[in-house]
């Protein structure tokens, strides 16, 4: 899913410093799964903001609501009678949410409470890691289900580079060298030819490099 981290409280406080009445909108999608913007986290953020503003002597009225998702017009629609009642609305959804809201309600101000980071999955409770860079031309099957575009710091297609040591990437001991993994697997399974052949340069047009993207299912468009 899409993974995000909550912005520092000071940054969020700065966003709403001129306001007295705000709505925090959570999302039951990805941000709930990575425990940063669901119902619970909305409640926690609301409490923290109220505490901070009470301390300043300028109380903030905070209302809370969590939508099914913030990436579908039918759910964005559900707040149409509410949004105008606030000085501003804080969205805890990924970067998509505040944008959909802004487009649907151009008269209102929407603020992102989280920094959206990557597409990933859980390694265990409370830990998520990046797995996909959304390059638009998936080739993980060439590398035994391991993606060098997303997981190699240099997105090499002929790794590992000379900086790989003890299975770790040169940039940090906390980052595994995916090429070390790929190559060891290929060697173990006697398929070293898969990684000793030259692959053509990647066509980045299908990635964000080619410009903002659109995906259409012709069979569903009305």
């Amino acid at each position, binding site marked *: 899913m899409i993974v995000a981290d909550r912005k*520092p*409280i*000071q940054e969020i*406080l700065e966003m709403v410093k001129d306001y007295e009445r705000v709505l925090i909108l959570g999302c039951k999608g990805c941000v709930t799964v990575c425990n940063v913007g669901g119902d*619970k986290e909305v*409640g*926690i953020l609301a*409490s*923290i*903001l*109220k*505490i*901070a503003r*009470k*301390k*300043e*002597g300028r*109380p903030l009225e905070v209302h809370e609501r969590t939508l099914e998702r913030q990436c579908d017009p039918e759910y964005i629609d559900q707040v149409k009678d509410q949004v105008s009642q606030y000085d501003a609305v804080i969205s805890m959804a990924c970067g998509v949410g505040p944008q959909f809201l802004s487009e649907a309600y151009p008269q209102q101000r929407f603020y992102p409470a989280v920094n959206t980071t990557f597409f990933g999955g859980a390694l265990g409770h409370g830990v998520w890691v990046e797995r996909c860079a959304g390059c638009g031309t998936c080739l993980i099957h060439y590398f035994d289900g391991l993606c060098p575009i997303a997981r190699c710091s240099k997105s090499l297609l002929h790794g590992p580079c000379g900086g790989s040591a003890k299975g770790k990437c040169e940039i940090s001991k906390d980052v595994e060298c995916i090429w070390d993994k790929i190559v060891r697997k290929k060697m173990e399974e006697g398929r070293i030819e898969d990684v000793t052949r030259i692959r053509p340069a990647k066509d980045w047009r299908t990635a964000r490099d080619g410009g903002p993207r659109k995906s259409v299912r012709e069979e569903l468009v009305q």
Partner: protein
Amino acid sequence: MRLNYPSSVKVIQIPCTGRVDILHLLKAIEDGADGVYVAGCLEGECHFLTGNLKAKKRVQFVKKALKEAGVEPERVEMFNLSAGEGPRFAEIAREMADRIKSLGPSPVRMKKAA
């Protein structure tokens, strides 16, 4: 045991500190408590195995959040003791009450309009 502990401490009983939620602690501060602490079993002796460890992490989270909001993180604390340690219970209560006294009233308490 009929030991004394400060009357400023209000006790809320729960089956396990693992039941304590981040919001419970935040709301306490939000609603004007000068301090809130969680008293759980000794580590390794939780009746429900890991409840007190979860509580410890949640207390850490709340301390950090309070710091970001400009409130002293010392107002929230985690303590561990066994159910039979009556004197320790009272001691903790005194310790926390003293700490809060020196910190002063919570800055969150409504300021009178100027």
